[in-house]
């Protein structure tokens, strides 16, 4: 049945205390209505320009601070053809290096996406060149056989590295602005969630058959909920959404625990909304109110009972206790931010094929009093091809569809993205991308 009920989501108008997440709606930016050329998604030449002018200029998510707590702990991440070695220093600061030996170009550390424990130094397994954790040469075997001496670089090539929000960031641009400047409003908006209190519960990388931007786009609009995720029509309001675009980054605020205006209320509480209630510690069977009051009642319930469950919501406003505060940190970090968890996606370009990408999925959860620290083990990072693992129904639905989008974009019969107002974040994302390409 085609329904379109009138529905206005009640939203908090005032932020929670001075340090709370700002809630005011931003004026809609004037970004025009032009078609976004499909070449950005399909063309190898464009991908190269994108690499040179954007990927090599921005700040990128590397790992989590608690991946490398002690001096010598290190972590290798990859972006495009680059491998980045992130190392905790003796003075507790963090350095990032190109993971490449200055001698013949071998990768120094071969492990990938798994925290490695304390090293006192790094030794290239090819000819045993050695580097300290600060990246400086500590040993070059048979140095006397190099008439020209050791390479002038003095060791591994470092790059800007800093941390925010429990995450470590790096940039291949040695002249990049400070991380805080780059992140702009992000720390101010997201610090109230205290990501540092959340623990990693799943991490997976899946190779998807689409351009990395097709994936970013899919999470930047909810217009596709009715088509791809119809079950979410009984879980969220996909129409009354607050979209806010900032300098480089953007967000939208989606009310959870409500019915979409595209459906009518069944006589029973829909199972996905029951799930919201149960997660908050409420019994749906005992609920006497109307389905339209559940979101507000869950907020009240969590506000009252959060502390006894061991969850500190004191910096969050009531909407944040139910809703999705959804942020995209340019270029490739998608954050589904909730009071009790952070579902983070990092979208990485395939090193040499614009029709492929690497989808990194990370789930962080806020431990409650029942959390079993004794048996908790940081999950091992696993890598899959498309279709080999489940990322939950919603992401599976996106993952199923995206290869078809990519195929379609390669068609002679398609010119580019024809975007509506519900897709404003995609337009804003492309504006930021254009700004980099034009520099």
């Amino acid at each position: 049945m085609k329904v379109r009920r009138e529905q206005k989501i009640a939203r908090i108008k005032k932020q929670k205390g001075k340090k709370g997440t700002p809630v005011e709606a931003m004026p809609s930016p004037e970004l025009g209505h032009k078609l976004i050329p499909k070449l950005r998604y399909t063309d190898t030449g464009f991908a190269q320009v994108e690499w040179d002018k954007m990927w090599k200029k921005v700040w990128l998510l590397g790992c989590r601070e608690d991946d490398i707590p002690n001096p010598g702990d290190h972590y290798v991440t990859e972006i495009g053809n680059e491998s980045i070695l992130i190392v905790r220093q003796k003075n507790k600061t963090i350095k990032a290096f190109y993971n490449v030996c200055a001698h013949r170009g071998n990768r120094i550390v071969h492990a990938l996406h798994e925290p490695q424990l304390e090293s006192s130094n790094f030794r290239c397994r090819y000819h045993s060149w050695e580097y300290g954790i600060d990246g400086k040469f500590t040993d070059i075997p048979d140095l006397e056989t190099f008439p020209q001496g050791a390479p002038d670089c003095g060791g591994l090539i470092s790059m800007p590295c800093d941390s925010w929000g429990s995450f470590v960031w790096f940039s291949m641009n040695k002249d990049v602005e400070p991380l805080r400047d780059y992140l702009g409003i992000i720390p101010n908006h997201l610090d109230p969630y205290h990501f540092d209190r959340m623990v990693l519960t799943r991490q997976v990388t899946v190779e998807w058959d689409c351009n990395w931007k097709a994936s970013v786009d899919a999470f930047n609009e909810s217009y596709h909920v009715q088509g791809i995720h119809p079950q979410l029509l009984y879980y969220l309001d996909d129409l009354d959404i607050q979209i806010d675009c900032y300098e480089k980054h953007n967000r939208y605020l989606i009310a959870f625990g409500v019915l979409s205006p595209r459906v009518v209320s069944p006589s029973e509480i829909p199972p996905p909304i029951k799930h919201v209630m149960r997660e908050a510690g409420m019994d749906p069977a005992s609920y006497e109110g109307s389905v339209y009051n559940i979101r507000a009642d869950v907020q009240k319930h969590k506000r009252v009972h959060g502390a006894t469950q061991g969850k500190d919501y004191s910096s969050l406003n009531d909407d944040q206790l139910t809703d999705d505060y959804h942020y995209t940190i340019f270029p490739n970090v998608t954050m589904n931010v909730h009071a009790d968890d952070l579902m983070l996606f990092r979208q990485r370009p395939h090193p040499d094929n614009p029709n492929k990408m690497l989808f990194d999925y990370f789930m962080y959860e806020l431990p409650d009093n029942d959390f079993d620290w004794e048996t908790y083990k940081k999950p091992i990072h696993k890598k899959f091809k498309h279709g080999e693992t489940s990322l939950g129904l919603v992401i599976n639905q996106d993952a199923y569809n995206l290869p078809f989008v990519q195929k379609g974009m390669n068609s002679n019969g398609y010119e580019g993205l024809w975007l509506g107002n519900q897709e404003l974040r995609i337009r804003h994302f492309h504006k930021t991308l254009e700004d980099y390409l034009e520099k």
Partner: protein
Amino acid sequence: MDLNLRGKNVLITGSTQGIGRRIANLFAEEGANVAICSRSPESVNKAIKEISLMADGKIIGSPCNIKNKEEYESWINDMAEELGGVDIFIPNVSAGGGMDSEKNWWKNFEIDVLGTVRGVEAVIPHMELRGGGSIVMISTTAAVETFMAPQSYNAMKAALITYAKQLSQAHGEKGIRVNSVSPGPIYFDGGAWDMIKISNERFYDKTEKTHALGRLGTPEEVAKAVVFLSSSGASWITGVNLVVDGGYTKRVQF
């Protein structure tokens, strides 16, 4: 066949939407006087207005929370008084399914079972005064075959079938017939199967194919069975459970 419903007084609980509402509509079309209820006064008033448009008889109603025994009994007595007696009673209201907690069992017991028992006990004296009557309970195919999950809804609805049979034996002498109707999956806009169709199309399609007649039922089709069993057309039928499911269930009813 004339169902002889003109001028008959019918009480239906939970009758502003869904199957209950279609039952009320059909009785109204057949010329009966109909009393309806639901918890919300707005829905009752709206439904009375809408049903009256197709009615020859009197359409009345008032809000009532079936859970509250006194409120429920006085709804029955008020309606009986206003219509001048009770000929037909359809205890239709249900707490629905769910496996959230033990509370589901209490709710199905309170609404589905006690909501029927208390209603029956309150209407029988009115029917005795008129020398007979007809009661049709609403059960479900989930009571006669395993369905979805072991939930209280299925078990409590099953209790109604047994209760109806016993009542039919106990009150037959007084000219009171008691039957039950067990609908299978029923589709209507805004109903549970509408939600399933939207959110899990595959399961919906599979369910549809399971029906011998190849589709889900409509609430009107259930209403027809209920109205027939209530009417003098079914004067020789009592103590049966009529499965109205388009061949969804597969058992043989000996």
